């Protein structure tokens, strides 16, 4: 079975201070599933995900990353890397006037233009047909996040990293995105999702990872991680309650 394997991934700032941002992390994760990543601000979520993407973010990264037997490092060519892993943040602006249609149809820098059936499938799944003729920068932040997510589904990397990508999405669309993620999982795509919306993570994730101050606190099934014990460690003194949703049977948090 194909796996995402991380061995002793360690990250420091790229400058001369070499401040440690992430202590060594080792994980094994099955491809075709959703991994939720949760932690307070500054706990190292983005650092971990950026390092995992192999992109050049001015970080000093050591350790090994294997995605489906493909080693990810900063020296791997960008085109080879982008078909394996793509990192998506949350803030998208084009300095130029670019329509949604152009963005979705232009494909990537390394392969042929994506097929029309693949594009229209994603457009339909995410219900973004009405955005197509619009200029990207005239959409709201949340709509733009949705369009960029669509862009990445069309590119179809093995692993899609979503770092707070849905931070400005409304409830309806958030649920839709969750369903679409599950559908694309069945086609073999893997999602790593960082979010501050614990209830959303619990809804979509197969496993969850908790980070605290650059340290891996726990990684396991959602019901093993989303407990008063672990959440108490993340937010000591904050009154939190974990309940099970009568509808979906998933764990939810009340505060």
């Amino acid at each position, binding site marked *: 079975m194909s796996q995402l394997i991380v061995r002793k991934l360690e990250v420091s700032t790229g400058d001369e201070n070499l401040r440690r941002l992430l202590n060594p992390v080792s994980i094994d994760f099955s491809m075709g599933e959703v991994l939720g990543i949760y932690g307070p601000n500054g706990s190292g979520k983005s650092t971990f995900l950026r390092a995992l993407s192999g992109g050049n973010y001015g970080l000093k990264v050591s350790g090994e990353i294997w995605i489906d037997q493909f080693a990810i490092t900063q020296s791997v060519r*960008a085109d080879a890397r*982008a078909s394996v892993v793509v990192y998506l943040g949350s803030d998208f602006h084009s*300095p*130029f006037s670019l329509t949604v249609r152009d963005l979705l149809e*232009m494909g990537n*820098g390394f392969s042929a233009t994506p097929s029309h059936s693949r594009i229209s499938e994603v457009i339909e799944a995410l219900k973004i047909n009405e955005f197509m003729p619009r200029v990207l*920068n*005239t959409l709201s932040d949340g709509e733009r996040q949705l369009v960029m997510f669509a862009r*990445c589904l069309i*590119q179809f990397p093995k692993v899609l990293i979503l770092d707070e990508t849905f931070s400005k999405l409304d409830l309806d669309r958030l649920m839709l995105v969750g369903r679409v993620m599950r559908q694309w999982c069945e086609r073999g795509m893997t999602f790593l999702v960082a979010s501050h919306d614990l209830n959303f993570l619990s809804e979509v994730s197969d496993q969850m990872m908790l980070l605290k101050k650059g340290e891996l606190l726990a990684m396991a099934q959602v019901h093993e991680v989303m407990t008063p014990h672990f959440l108490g460690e993340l937010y000591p003194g904050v009154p939190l309650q974990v309940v099970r949703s009568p509808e979906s049977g998933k764990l939810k948090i009340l505060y």
Partner: protein
Amino acid sequence: MSRELKKKYALVITALIISALLSLFLRLDFSNASLILKELRVPRLLTAFGVGSALSIAGLMLQTTLANPLAEPYTLGIASGAALGAAIGSSLGLKLPFMGLNFGAVLGAVMVLLILLRLTAQGSRKSDSMILLGIMVSLTCASLLSIWMVLSDPVGVQSVTFWLLGDLSRVGLGAGATLCFASALVTSWFWFQYRKYDAFLMGEGLVESFGVSYQTTLRITVVLISLLVGLCVSAVGMIGFVGLIVPHLVRRFLGSSRHFHMIPMSFLGGASILILSDAMAHAVGEPRELPVGAVTALVGAPAFIYLFIHRKRSEVGVE
């Protein structure tokens, strides 16, 4: 290609032909036509074609790769760097025997671009600070150029005007043809890579996500643009704002920023606009001649101000 696009191409090509005819035949002394055409007007037309297309493509590619809609060889100081390099280079005899290519100009352009990329961290390239720095670099180079010209050449003060305002009349047939060839060659290289440049349209943070190496592409682009701008500046001096205005006009005209059509359209558009400006500069001042750089700047500088003020709005795409 859709019908609408075909119409747009037809329109631009017609504009190009009309400009070319104007440049060849406007105020032509028909008693001596064949000599004037052969010796003066055709070389001049070729030069304007080569330089106009090259500057426009340079502007487009700089705007794309730096994610800065105000970037162009002139506003970033690359043109002044090339002029300074060319002046120093020709005094030192760095001029290559063929077609007036001046190594100094290319070196000057590369130096300025490297300095700018050093001074601006990745994030600040799309901001105004890059343009401000570019203008300061430009002023520094222009002052050094004036000092160098006056010190090295007794009649240097006149040549300074040539470098600072541009003059298409000194270029011969061979050099004009070389400029056209170089411009077409570099443009085709960019055009064959249009997918890569499309990946820059969402800003530098996402370039690698689209499978394009940011550093490698930027480096190659910078070198090619420096070559092209160096070549133009060493042949005709500095001609500003063509590289700024043409890509903006073409983006509006096409209604798209994708490079498959942006590159050929900017190439043709840049050529026609410089040919037209040169014909105007030539005809209006008769019998004297206005420096063509002064004509493009006269139109270009107010357009820059307009773009600068309305940029926020145009960036969010409200037409």
